């Protein structure tokens, strides 16, 4: 009787550890954001052929930026909190890139997920405030709002209305490689780390 129970205990413990490990990517990710970051790092993801419009009103397709890595962040202009941190991260990277004589090694792209309120004049205003030049650092929105969902899904961005007219969203810095694939997802304050890893 006791032997059966002991064997059952061992079997349950082994199965439990295996299942728990399997469903947490080897105990590395307890959150869906962590799981997404691991999955992207292990297998870069293709991005949709979305058309964006920047702060100058110029339309461009996302695949047209292939050839150089891009750091991407998502924001909305009336964001009271975390978007400011992302913008300040991009500002410090931009300052470094704009001094490079042989041309920037990477591009910066800030994409609004609030196309209803973030019109081109709003984007231009925002770009002027944060210092985005429209060449190295572009501030953009989707041209057709119907493309927004696919774009957010491709980057793993979840946007929830906060009940006060704003949004709650996962804040991160996304690295799109020179082949136009989502290759890495970094913390919102890790732009320097992203650049350092690119240099390696």
């Amino acid at each position: 009787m006791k032997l059966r129970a002991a064997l059952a205990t061992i079997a349950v413990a082994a199965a439990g550890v295996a299942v728990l490990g399997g469903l947490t990517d080897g105990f590395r990710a307890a959150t869906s954001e962590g799981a997404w970051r691991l999955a992207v790092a292990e297998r870069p993801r293709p991005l949709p052929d979305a058309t964006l419009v920047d702060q100058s009103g110029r339309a461009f397709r996302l695949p047209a930026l292939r050839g150089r890595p891009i750091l991407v962040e998502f924001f909305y202009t009336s964001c009271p909190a975390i978007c400011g941190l992302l913008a300040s991260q991009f500002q410090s990277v931009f300052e470094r890139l704009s001094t490079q004589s042989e041309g920037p090694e990477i591009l910066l792209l800030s994409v609004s997920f609030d196309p209803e309120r973030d019109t081109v004049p709003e984007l231009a205003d925002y770009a002027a405030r944060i210092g985005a030049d429209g060449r190295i650092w572009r501030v953009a929105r989707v041209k057709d709002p119907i493309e927004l969902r696919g774009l957010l899904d491709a980057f793993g961005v979840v946007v929830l209305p906060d009940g006060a007219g704003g949004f709650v969203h996962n804040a991160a810095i996304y690295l799109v490689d020179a082949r136009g694939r989502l290759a890495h997802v970094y913390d919102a304050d890790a732009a320097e780390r992203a650049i350092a890893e690119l240099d390696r």
Partner: protein
Amino acid sequence: MIPGILLYMVLVMPPVAAWLEGSMAGHMLIQIPLLALAGGLAARGAAGRRRAVLAGFNAGGVPGLLVAMFAAALWMLPRMLDAALQSSLVEAAKFTAVPLLVGVPLALSWPLMPPVARGFVWANLISHAAVLGWLYTVAPYRLCTRYLYDQQALVGAALFIVAMALLVGWGWFAIAGRPIGPWSRHRAAVS
């Protein structure tokens, strides 16, 4: 058995499920524990012969308790809560696994466990709920992408309150010398 099945039928109703899953606290602290309770109540009516066969593999209640602990830990993971909201397949797995792998084994194992083991379970449950509650309250980022930050903080506060309530309740019963646990009376009936 009937109360467990009735409770399950209420929980599985789409409006009830949607309402409870509308908030992180409702999902994590009400729906999942109630699903486990439904399984536990249903198991109380299990036929005696089957119970005896199972008890052979579950001497002391340890294997059954381990099944319940692993399954509960799994369905409390933030990514599983997110996944259940995103995928109907994971949602169906939750509605199957929580009653069958948390509630049923716990109900069948608890009467077999010696008082020391039950005290160990309670002590762990209380300390984990308190620590988890504190972590959820102070975490600087959202653990579930599908729920707002203030809901996470609410879950943290609620977990902490539950831990304190359990501590007081458990302490009271321990001092008063009465058996600990929801299935204590059932144990007396079985033995």
